[in-house]
């Protein structure tokens, strides 16, 4: 199978704008809401969403990055130990509404680890999940996203490639490819 384009630059822009509108609908002026991007790849989407939200609401919304590496359930079950990334949560999430942001929702295991890792920073009032791509039929755990950019039917042998300008790519593009 060749690389197949799922979202091009224009469509991605429309999708992210729609996700922001949905967030504004549910969170109003974002008084008690914080946004947390998942390391390593969800942080770029979180940055993008924050920028758009702050522009349209004219509010400062707290943004954090969360790394769930040490909370993963596949330690000792993979070839090499997963490498950690920086966690930067410069606020207390106790009592806050957390919007967890990741690029792709696949098995749901990273999200489980993230929920676990988040507890170290307090007990949030509510946690919502926002993903750009939801890979249907691939879930290992009962986890679902509250905000979805696009649902894609994929095989386990396939991979979703997210290329964002913030990661150094020429254009924002999302691809579906085969592994290897």
């Amino acid at each position, binding site marked *: 199978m060749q690389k197949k384009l799922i979202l091009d630059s224009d469509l991605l822009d429309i999708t992210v704008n729609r996700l922001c509108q949905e967030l504004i609908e549910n969170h109003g002026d974002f008084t008690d809401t914080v946004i947390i991007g998942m390391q390593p790849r969800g942080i770029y989407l979180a940055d993008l969403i924050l920028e758009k939200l702050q522009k349209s609401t004219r509010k400062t919304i707290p943004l954090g990055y969360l790394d769930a*590496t*040490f909370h993963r359930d596949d*330690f*000792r079950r993979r070839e090499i*130990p997963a490498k950690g990334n*920086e966690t930067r949560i410069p606020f207390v999430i106790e009592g806050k509404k957390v919007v967890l942001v990741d690029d792709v929702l696949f098995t749901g295991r990273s999200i489980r680890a993230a929920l676990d*890792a988040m507890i170290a*920073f307090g007990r949030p009032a509510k946690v919502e999940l926002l993903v750009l791509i939801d890979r249907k039929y691939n879930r290992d755990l009962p986890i679902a996203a509250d905000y979805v950019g696009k649902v894609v039917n994929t095989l386990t042998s396939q991979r979703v490639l997210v290329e964002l300008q913030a990661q150094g790519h020429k254009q924002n593009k999302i691809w579906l490819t085969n592994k290897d």
Partner: protein
Amino acid sequence: MSKLSQKHLLGIKDITKEDIELIFETADNFKDVINRPIKKVPSLRDITIANIFFENSTRTRLSFELAERRLSADVINFAASNSSVKKGETLLDTVNNILAMKVDMVVMRHASPGAPHFLSKHISANIVNAGDGTHEHPTQALLDAFSIREKLGGVAGKKIAIIGDILHSRVALSNIFALKKLGAKVMVCGPPTLLPKFINQLGVEVEFDVRKALLWCDVANVLRIQLERQQIKYFPSLREYSLYYGINKKLLDSLKKPIIIMHPGPINRGVELSSDVADSQHSIILEQVENGVAIRMAVLYLLAGATV
């Protein structure tokens, strides 16, 4: 590549520069973890670690145990002083009996150089050397280099003087290997009787005058006089040693330059370091202790993750 080249951490001599850098990057993450309100992560929750100490230790044993518990490992502690070793059991028998209780990793301190290397040839569990006699103390060297990197932004090209009882010090040897691998310039300084004869073959400079060594270096790593390992007299008296090699505030002030003072502990106050230096702005001794937990978490995490 995020995997160590070795199954055990027996000494710095056996690992590569890339290994050391991987340990540092992982330790950065763990340092962040241990400064959170909840200092624990579940990574090693299905692993059991035995801390086997045939020699006394406070800092290293506590530091390893904290690192293990913060990674959620199950921990058993063993001190030779109140065990069947006293009844004549051999090292291999003792360890095999502990491993028969399904232990995955062994952290060992032993008075004999090479004891963990011997063990690594006979058992399958991961071994972390927590000090073998006068040979190596790899996690101490890693945390020392990590502390220098944190304080000065890097290790390569920096000048580090190791001052004191080099002959009996496993910290000195491991530090020399680690610092050289990371591209630092290393000098050893002490009385001629406490410097090994062929130490310059390790690519280090040798200096007998402590003032000159301090003038040369960015960082002074000061070591304790290990009286418990000295069967003969290497210098006339502790007072005389302190007079010629002790570092005090007056000496540091007279250098008129920034300098960092490190010490692996335990300090003999008034011998190698005076109290006004140990507690001064120059000293990063307590930062070293904090970094020790992060470094040991990184080593255990990387070794445990590579076993399957």
